[in-house]
């Protein structure tokens, strides 16, 4: 398993559009991907679960990937979040 700490830089938080784009990007990986936020673990392939978590602007989160393409998945997940999810 690999993981990395990062921070959400979208002013609006993880709302519908970024959550959709993010979950879609994660769905192409085989590994299990989770977002840890406030001691909760969220399935990163599910936009509904991401929105439900209500992750706010400036929150510290940890991305955790477990499976055969975990390195690649982690890289893309962190890149997407740090680039502000193209907002």
């Amino acid at each position, binding site marked *: 398993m690999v993981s990395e700490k990062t921070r959400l830089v979208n*002013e*609006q*938080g993880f*709302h*519908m*559009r970024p959550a*959709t784009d993010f*979950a*879609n990007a994660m*769905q192409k990986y085989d590994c299990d991907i989770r977002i840890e936020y406030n001691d909760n673990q969220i*399935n990163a*392939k*599910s*936009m*509904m*679960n991401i*929105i*439900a*978590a*209500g992750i*706010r602007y400036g929150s510290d989160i940890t991305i955790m990937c477990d499976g055969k393409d975990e390195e690649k998945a982690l890289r893309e997940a962190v*890149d*997407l979040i*740090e*680039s*502000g999810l*193209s907002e």
Partner: protein
Amino acid sequence: MNQVCLNNKLFGIAVSKGIANGKAFVIKTRENDFSHFADNSKLELSRFLDAIDKFEKDNEEKAFRLNEKERKILLGHTAMVKDPYVFDSIKKEIENKKTAEKAVFDVFEEYIKLFENSNDKITIERCDDIKDVRNGIIEILQNKNTKVSGIGYNSVVVVKELTPSLISSLDREKVVAVISENGSETSHSAILARTLEIPSILSVKSATEIIKDGDTLIVDTENSQITINPSKNEIIECEKKKEKIKAENEKIKKYLTLPCLTKDSKRISIYSNAGTFFDVERGIKVNTEGVGLFRTEFLYMDRETPITEEEQFQIYKKCVTALKGKPLTIRTLDIGGDKNVKSLDLKKEENPFLGFRAIRFCLNRDDVFIPQLTAILKASAYGKIRIMLPLVTTANEILSAKEKIECVKMTLSKKKVDFDSNIEVGIMVETPSAAISAEKLIKYCDFFSIGTNDLVQYIMAVDRGNKDVKYLYSPLEPAVIKAIKHISDCARNQNKEVGMCGEQATDKTMIPLLVSLLDEFSVNPAFLLKTKYRIAKYTTDFSKWLVNEALKCDTKAEIENLVKTTSQSQKL
């Protein structure tokens, strides 16, 4: 919020402007009646799959009428059902012998509770979207027509829950206004109401109970007020107000065929901005005199491999041909590390806005820049194209870019490919260095275009996405006005044209100042006529005087006040 029923008045939050009167058409939400358990799970599963398919197709059809941004809302709705977690949960419920309807209802119900308990305003608002999706799918499963039927002309639709799917299916010919018990300024329904230009008042408590089907209503968003069964006088007042708004719209429409002139009949070019062929067409529909900014970064985004020279050529050719001799100003790739562009392999950086981006990136990446320049030059054989370089900071950058343009020209000549050998090359003036040494840079280019969005950001050293410092982001800051004046003077001293592309070129407060400073305004097609109308209100002399007075001011507030108090009287 004051949502009180005073005599025959109701109040709410106005989200889409206008005034309208008509007959109430009250839509009561249907109770969901369906059986909870089914014997044949396989059949239920295939019903569910068919319903999702239909839901997706219907959404795509509706989305067709909308802009990119609004389209994303409906596509987000499709994504909600296709969410693998949601999908699997529904499947499991169906395997547990629930009907497709009940399974969909229960799973989404869980999410509504989750969202409601999130303590986050935006997340809680998304409950309306979930309910909309849930009801949409259940209606498809029960074969109910989602379209609202039976609405007559001049109807004011009154609903408990205004949903994006409802508002996007309303017939604009018949529905004059919308009232809803739920919703807020930022809800997706509000965004759609604004796009479709339906006057709407949301968050009106108990509206569907107080208002009866067939009641006469006046909906006035100016004071966020609904009048139920108004008096004769109130109707007369409403008609007067409608006339006034109509007259103003007519006035603006008149500008469709009028040339763009200042009050003292000085000619100004009015161009439109675009990022796609569709935008170019929108400009042509309002008689644009050309495209003052064609953004090319969208061509590179959302794809795995870089766009080829041929693909670009076809797009530019299509646009310039449609413009029939009017100029198409193509801004070369303006992109940097803040965007995640798969096809370009951009490096992530600490300070993307001060980093390897736009012209800096292009000059270093012949594999990207040369195909773009080649495509632009090849398309220039089909009409008038101008090249515009973004984020220029030094004269050397202009020289290097021009060198590359000359190289491409040589290659094309050798291959006997046609192009416009006198193609104009200009720059976006959007950095402090370009503004300060505009008198030097203008020597090397054919025109200037002031990019206000970035210019304000760099001059004021402020990230407008940051709530804490956003107050500094204003084009009316004395430093910005001074810079724009200097840029304009430098271009004109060399008899070259200076334009502006960006939101500020349409701004009510900026236009009186800009009339004497610019030769071209390039604006969003939606604001083109309004901008013409605003330009026509002012004389060049008044604008010159106003700029001089503004330069004497020390603060943004003084400038704002100056423009507001003097431009009113000048109009008359």
